[in-house]
């Protein structure tokens, strides 16, 4: 198979998929021209990511990477979420094809963008 079982599982049954109306932080990365956009929503309470949602326009591995990333940061302190690396996502997915590694990078960036947005909004408060 093109993808590992883990990837196919997260692709066909994505976790935390959907929008979030009252997000504390929203990050969107990628662009439609390149075929991948990820949008990540986080809800933070006491410095911990209480809830997370994502929306993705992209291929199977983009969707699976988003899904896996949300699972990996849910319940974690925001600082820890910031440290999420794309390698960690790839490993958690039992690997990605070489030409799909950029999807995991996008997931890492989406998390970072959401956290940064959260920080910004906190600062504005």
């Amino acid at each position, binding site marked *: 198979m093109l993808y590992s079982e883990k990837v196919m599982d997260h*692709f*066909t049954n994505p976790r935390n998929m959907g929008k979030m109306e009252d997000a504390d932080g929203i990050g*969107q990365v990628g662009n439609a*021209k*390149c075929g991948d956009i990820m*949008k990540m929503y986080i809800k933070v309470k006491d410095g911990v990511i209480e809830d997370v949602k994502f*929306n*993705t326009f992209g*291929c*199977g591995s983009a969707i699976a990477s988003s899904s896996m990333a949300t699972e990996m940061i849910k319940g974690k302190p925001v600082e820890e979420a910031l440290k999420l690396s794309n390698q960690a996502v790839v490993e958690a997915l039992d690997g990605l094809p070489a030409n799909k590694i950029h999807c995991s990078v996008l997931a890492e960036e989406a998390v970072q963008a959401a956290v940064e947005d959260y920080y910004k909004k906190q600062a504005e408060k």
Partner: protein
Amino acid sequence: MNIYADQAATTRISETAKKAMLDCMDKAYGNPSSLHTPGQTAKEYLEAARISVAEQIGARPAEIYFTSGGSESDNQAIFSAARLGAMKGKRHIVSTKIEHHAVLHVLKRLEKEGFEVTYLDVHGDGIVRPEEVCSAIREDTALVSVMYANNEIGTLQPIREVGRICREKKVLFHTDAVQAAGHVSIDVERDSVDMLSLSGHKFCGPRGAGALYVKKGVPLLNLIEGGAQERGKRAGTENLPAIVGMAAALEESCRRMDEDGRKVTELRERLIDGLLRIPHSRLNGDRKRRLPGNINVCFEGIEGESLLLLLDARGIAASSGSACTSGSLDPSHVLLALGLPHEVAHGSLRLTIGPDNTAEEIDYMVENIKQVVEYLRNMSPVWEELQKGERRYVIQ
């Protein structure tokens, strides 16, 4: 339900072709170059296949060279024409923006060697304009190469007109008929073709056999040097079972062409009608002038690979021009040539069907594609932006 709707990628081998191959393995196990009876029997099978293939495209047997497939045929035709042209100082080639990679990548290599290539536009409908072929031809044009039918969007090119122009201008004309052979009528005389490529596995023949038609009198250089097979123009022990299987499949496809074509066109229209009912979808390529079995649509706001994989999970085998399916960053050069922006081209779906597909399957596909498109749009931030008016619809 399991539906194979990717027949442009490769077809399932027909029982006719398989039987012909097995018979050949059994009875014609010799090498056609050998003088003994098993060899001469093999030779008879080979020449019978040549006569049969020639007949289906209006050629003479001596004008047919067997190769390993469409890519090899394309490579040999174009490299040969280019090298022979260069000897006469002709280093210009006319082709189109929507050729298969087996043509385009040869042209790219020739460009690196100093050839100049004019890639003709195919406008919004995916069809090249004969008058543009005409005005692109120059004094130093060594070759015009225009495909018979496109593999992604199925558009039929005006080969007869292009052929007539090339004949008048005395320029060599090659056509990649890999997607056309066995599906639409081909006649190298009527179409004024000098060289034509075809490939067995696109019309329910076996993989590993193709043919190159080269008009009598047109010189041909080898791509593969060695033994004297194929009148010295293509070395290597002939893949006889596959050649014989290809001939049987082509004969059958051509015999059934009218009947199958009508049936498949009807299925295609039903499928297109169903899919275009999905909002913000469009058909790629002219609706009429296309292969009977080709449907290529774009759905705005979603990406093709994920569409494809979810359809596969529902038993539908399809294809996409999405960048993600090719390992490159850009979506299909064919969809871009139609003028589609990248983000829309990413959301393409190609369904290629044949006479073995049923109306029931069509309806199943329409229903499931509708559901999957809806599902993917729901998770797509692009779709969200489109709906909120933060992004303009490309497909109305």
